[in-house]
């Protein structure tokens, strides 16, 4: 079966996010007063696997081994079978 995978990677709560802070200051320059600005990385890909459980196992592994740094990141995985 073919699956569509989305991995969302964000900084752990409380971690400094200089990119988000800069975006927020830039928005203020345009007159938009916003709060709690955040940036999140989204990585998407497709993969072929027998079942959704195996996909989840493999993607978890990818997150631990490469996609995230556990010291600073939290991640969220979404898996959808392709129609």
């Amino acid at each position: 079966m073919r699956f569509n995978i989305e991995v969302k990677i964000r900084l752990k709560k409380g971690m400094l996010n200089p990119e988000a802070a800069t975006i927020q200051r830039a928005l203020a320059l345009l007159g938009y007063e916003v709060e709690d600005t955040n940036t999140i990385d989204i990585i998407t890909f497709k993969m072929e696997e027998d079942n959704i459980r195996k996909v989840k196992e493999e993607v978890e592994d990818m997150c631990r081994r490469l996609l995230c740094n556990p010291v600073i990141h939290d991640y969220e995985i979404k898996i959808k079978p392709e129609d």
Partner: protein
Amino acid sequence: MKVGVIRFPGSNCDRDVYHALKLVGARPEYIWWNQEDLSHLDAVIIPGGFSYGDYLRAGAIAAITPVMGAVKSMVEDEKPILGICNGAQILAEVGLVPGVFTVNQYPKFNCKWTKLKVKTRRTPFTSLYKEDEVIRMPIAHAEGRYYTDNLQKLWDNDQVVLQFHSENPNGSLDGITGVCDESGLVCAVMPHPERASETILGSADGIKFFKGIIEYISRC
């Protein structure tokens, strides 16, 4: 005395490090990212640059290359390993030193001379300095802000190697910009000792990093 200088696609301080090693009488050897056996080397240096375009996170992709497996074997064999700038980011990503070097507090590529305090002499690279000696070496990075979730352990275990002196240009925790593993043999520093290895460059304060390797190897 063979000292490896690892090259990844995107490394750009490899020749400077090679030159500094020559200055102290070592026999440097370039090592490519896919080499799996480094057992013939006495020590290894991972130079600065932008390996794999800094994609994903600085050092993340270099961290999973075959040569880093070989570096882990060298660590088991108790051989000295030094990571400079991108090399430091790689060692942190591999988990050979604690913490991470992440995006600078202010969104700026920081390229300047800095004053640094040598916080421990127990690594081969800092053994020739005095404790708390203030030295001058340049930094050049956008992702150098040191962060760890266990700062106290780092101080308790004497794993802080370099600390910014009189300023904190990237927002590092406690101004830390060089750390080592518990043994002291694996050392990761953001400043560039090779760019401060001759007076003509503006400072020769960094040359002792390389002399220290030679001294350590000849003692073993």
